[in-house]
């Protein structure tokens, strides 16, 4: 049977190519601005986050993040709860790094109440904080790859996470919300086998990370989509209070663990990773390299783990004397600070929670302006934010 040429496809162009070229190159090509709504349910936003983007052709003219879909009012809730209850509340802010969120509250209390924390508890805290940081960074390693169309990193990252997750589960019983810190120390000593499991987890990550880094950072497509995309200037970062891996990707090398060491961070040998260009590529590179530094800290802390008590001398009722204190710590996503005002009660008079993602995301309109629509997802993904951390 003869093929019906007419039906299979007429390959002669509908428009004359010369005609099209004339239109495209024509100076009178008019474009119109339109508003594109991204979210609140969008896979690239890691939660309920909305972006109101004004676009002109392929270019973002303006982008306004709209937040508040997850607002739980922690700053009000904590005023009606005592300090023991707040431990479990605040660990739900940034759900990827639960144990890191618990820390500043306890440091606040220990400062106001002048509690001395035993060495073993301090080392134990460091081990857990850094393991949680690795978990968090691996999660963003996975999600950033997935957002750029590479699904393999997700499987690798989750395989590596599992051993570390198991160690934390052995010690605390939780996988996300650990509730393990107490004013003056930690809840209980770790079970036998914890250190072996933790070391197994972090050594595995260290051994394989270079390979994983190559998988994305050494990939041509990845490079084309991230290099010189979404550049965040150093001064702008300061001006908005951007911190964490995002600030360090813009050539800022501050890290609370180095600048104002808390716990026993000054006893470990680790480097602050930073990169000069401020684009998506550098932010991601810093994030990946930080995993190695954290793993180094975990190894050193377990090596030097002292024996002894895990709780300091703490009164039966936790009641901070009247006073004010601001404590900041290096959360995986940036500077987490608690400003505690106590009037001597068992609950805080006021607790201002300064979360890293809030400041980091507030700079987005500035970064997104003038970028291409196709780069928007890469930029959003490279800002490593957790919605619960923004909305509190």
């Amino acid at each position, binding site marked *: 049977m003869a093929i019906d040429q007419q039906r299979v496809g007429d390959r002669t162009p509908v428009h004359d190519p010369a005609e099209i070229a004339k239109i495209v190159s024509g100076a009178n090509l008019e474009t119109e601005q339109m508003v594109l709504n991204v979210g609140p349910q969008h896979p690239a936003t890691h939660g309920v986050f909305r972006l109101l983007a004004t676009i002109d052709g392929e270019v973002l003219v303006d982008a306004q993040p709209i937040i508040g879909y997850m*607002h739980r009012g922690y700053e009000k809730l904590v005023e*009606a709860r005592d300090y023991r209850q707040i431990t479990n509340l605040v660990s739900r802010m940034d759900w990827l790094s639960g144990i890191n969120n618990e820390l500043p509250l306890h440091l606040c209390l220990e400062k106001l109440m002048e509690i001395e924390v035993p060495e073993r508890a301090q080392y134990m805290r460091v081990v857990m904080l850094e393991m949680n940081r690795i978990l968090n960074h691996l999660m963003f390693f996975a999600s950033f790859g997935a957002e750029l169309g590479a699904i393999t990193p997700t499987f690798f990252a989750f395989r590596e996470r599992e051993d570390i997750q198991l160690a934390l589960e052995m010690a605390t019983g939780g996988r996300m919300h650990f509730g393990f810190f107490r004013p003056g120390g930690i809840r209980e000593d770790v079970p036998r086998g914890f250190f072996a499991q933790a070391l197994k987890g972090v050594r595995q990550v260290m051994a394989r990370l270079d390979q994983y880094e190559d998988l994305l950072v050494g990939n041509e497509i990845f490079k084309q989509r991230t290099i010189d995309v979404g550049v965040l200037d150093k001064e702008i970062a300061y001006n908005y*209070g951007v911190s964490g891996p995002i600030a360090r990707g813009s050539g800022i090398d501050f890290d609370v663990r180095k600048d104002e060491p808390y716990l026993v961070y000054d006893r470990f040998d680790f480097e602050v990773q930073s990169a000069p260009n401020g684009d998506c590529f550098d932010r991601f590179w810093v994030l990946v390299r930080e995993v190695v530094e954290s793993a180094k800290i975990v190894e050193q802390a377990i090596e030097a783990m002292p024996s002894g008590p895990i709780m300091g001398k703490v009164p039966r009722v936790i009641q901070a004397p009247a006073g004010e204190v601001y404590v900041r710590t290096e959360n995986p996503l940036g500077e987490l600070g608690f400003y505690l005002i106590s009037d001597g009660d068992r609950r805080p008079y006021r607790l201002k929670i300064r979360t890293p993602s809030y400041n980091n995301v507030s700079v987005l309109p500035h970064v997104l302006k003038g970028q291409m629509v196709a780069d928007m997802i890469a930029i959003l993904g490279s800002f490593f934010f957790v919605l619960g951390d923004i909305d509190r």
Partner: protein
Amino acid sequence: MPVIERGDVGHVRERLDSDFGTRLKDLRINHGHLDVIVQPHDLVELVTFLRDAPGLRFRFFTFLSGVDRSAFGPEDAEDKPHPLEVLIHLYSPDHVLHVTIHVPVDPADPVCPSINRVFAGALWHERETHEMFGIDFDGHPNLSNLYLPEDFEGRPLLKSFKLPSRMVKDWPGAKDPEEAAAGGR
């Protein structure tokens, strides 16, 4: 210019004392951070100075919020603190220094100048403080709600705003250790 040691907060106090003198109150060092009280009309000048002055360079914007101190301490206390204030924290990454700025505002008509021209990062923080405390920021381009729905009534972080569940049952119940003996369990 004198060389400043890392974390030398006493130096900041001297600098502020000589440049702003009587316009600042309560220059005291609290847990290694400098605490300053400044009146609203001097605020913008102060933060600009802190940000730009060589040797200080408080260019990292940490946070801006509010505090309602109207319920602070016992009711019959002699020296009550100012009932409503704006709280600002700045950090100097170059010299590892912190400064906390308290700006007392009139609780009947709370207005404070916006610092968004000095620190653009304050835009969201001021919006949040506006909806939570009802403080107006003069010069802010858009003070619409950030978290709360548009038709929400009340200023949640003021002490006069009670949580509904706490109105029904006061806190703490009788579940605390020292009250357990009274049969609270």
